[in-house]
């Protein structure tokens, strides 16, 4: 009842689909394994983290960092950004070589005590997420010259971007910290950099 020709053509179709799909999948897999290039170096800076420890450019070395600028009394995008950061912070709980850094753009109001409360409110219970504070002048300088953000109208006019920084304190890529699609690309890049860091040790 079943002709031999039928079987051969069914097998041919399956092989064709299989080979085609394998090709597409391998292309797609390769395409997401490309590390974003170096944009620029993070300049030296000097800040204090919410637990009172000093935090400077060297603290970025040998770790992958995700950094953003926020202020605790911000009504608009910051809660969304911090919430997304919190999700990442939880998801990467087993990866101490990934750190999260939030720099306040409103140091007048955001004292270390307030930053501590903010950290607690975001479920921070270890060293992987730090909230940094410095003088307004220095923050503005770091934001503008260090990270190439528009910083004329701080605190309200701070950027909503997340910055990915590699283990040599190079800025690698910017992501929209309020956009889920952007964050999933960030997640992929974090994985690539962590894998590379792990293999290089």
């Amino acid at each position: 009842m079943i002709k031999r020709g039928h079987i051969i053509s069914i097998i041919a179709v399956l092989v064709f689909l299989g080979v085609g799909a394998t090709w597409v999948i391998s292309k797609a897999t390769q395409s997401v394994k490309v590390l974003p290039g170096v944009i620029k170096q993070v300049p030296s800076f000097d800040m204090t983290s919410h637990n009172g420890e000093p935090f400077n450019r060297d603290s970025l070395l040998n770790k992958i960092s995700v950094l953003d600028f926020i202020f605790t009394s911000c009504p608009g995008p910051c809660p969304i950004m911090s919430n997304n950061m919190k999700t990442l912070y939880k998801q990467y709980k087993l990866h101490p070589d990934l750190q999260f850094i939030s720099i306040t753009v409103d140091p007048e109001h955001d004292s270390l005590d307030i930053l501590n409360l903010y950290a607690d409110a975001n479920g921070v219970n270890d060293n992987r997420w730090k909230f940094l504070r410095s003088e307004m002048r220095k923050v503005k300088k770091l934001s503008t010259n260090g990270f190439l953000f528009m910083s004329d109208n701080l605190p309200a006019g701070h950027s909503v971007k997340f910055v990915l920084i590699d283990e040599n304190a190079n800025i690698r890529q910017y992501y929209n910290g309020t956009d889920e699609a952007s964050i999933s690309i960030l997640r992929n890049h974090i994985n690539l950099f962590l894998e590379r860091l792990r293999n290089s040790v």
Partner: protein
Amino acid sequence: MKKYFRFSVLSIVFTYLLIFIGGLVRVAGAGMGCPDWPKCFDRWIPPTSITQLPDHIDPEKFNLVLAWVEYLNRLSGAFVGFIILVSCVYAILHFKNNKRVVFSISSALFFTLVEGWLGSKLVDTVLDPVTITLHLLLALIIIGLIIYSSIQAYYDIKGNFEKDSFYPYHIKYIILGIFACIVIEIIVGTEIRGGLDISRKDNPLIDGVILLKMLGPFKYIHTILGVALLGLVLYLRKLIYDNNYNSSEYMIYAVNSMLILIGAQIVLGETLVFFDVKPIVQLFHMWFSSLLLGLSIAQYTLWEISNRK
């Protein structure tokens, strides 16, 4: 009338191809390849280089391969929609008296539009897991309706090709049981697939096989139900091969194809569990399940026709 039949068969072939491409988008991780809908980076022809991106879309979202894979799915979707539309027109012109044909192909056309809309929602919700599953289930409803319509049209063209067969009444329940098993298997399968995705996000950089082991009881239900399905199909085959019932060659063809597919599904499924969660294996595992569902609907239609004497 023959024209309708030809177009409906074409619709079946292309819809299956489309389900395959849809699965390819999923396993290639290309679902967000175009961040907007229906256009891709605000263009009808997706960008071929990053310089073509419009200003208002973040360039970090652009990945040439993923954009074109996703767009291939949308273009094929539009093409299939067109073929189904043509089928629908022929059905209305030539099968005025056969409500079964007209109603099922028109519903298929309607659901194809809903499917497109659901595709846009997938982009809006950044691939919400429930919406992904609905997107697949709707595709299966569409293919089921076209298969039903096509076989019913064949009946009108050819006369009753099931007139000599006398299936026992309870074969209906066996066929429906198989159908139910396949549907549940597909839903549980998508749950496993989705669970794996969530688990991968929550446990980055951990091997897929280990993540699969961490998943809940769904995976056992999937296996147990698979065995039950195999048993039911073997029983159905025994009935169909019983000389007393004088089964049609179509029925025999369908049940044997089903058996081969289930065999292949077991091999593919075990490969995923024991070796590696390979995207290409996931893709064929999903696609074969859609073929199984189609065969099951074909069997039901044949049984229905065998009762129309």
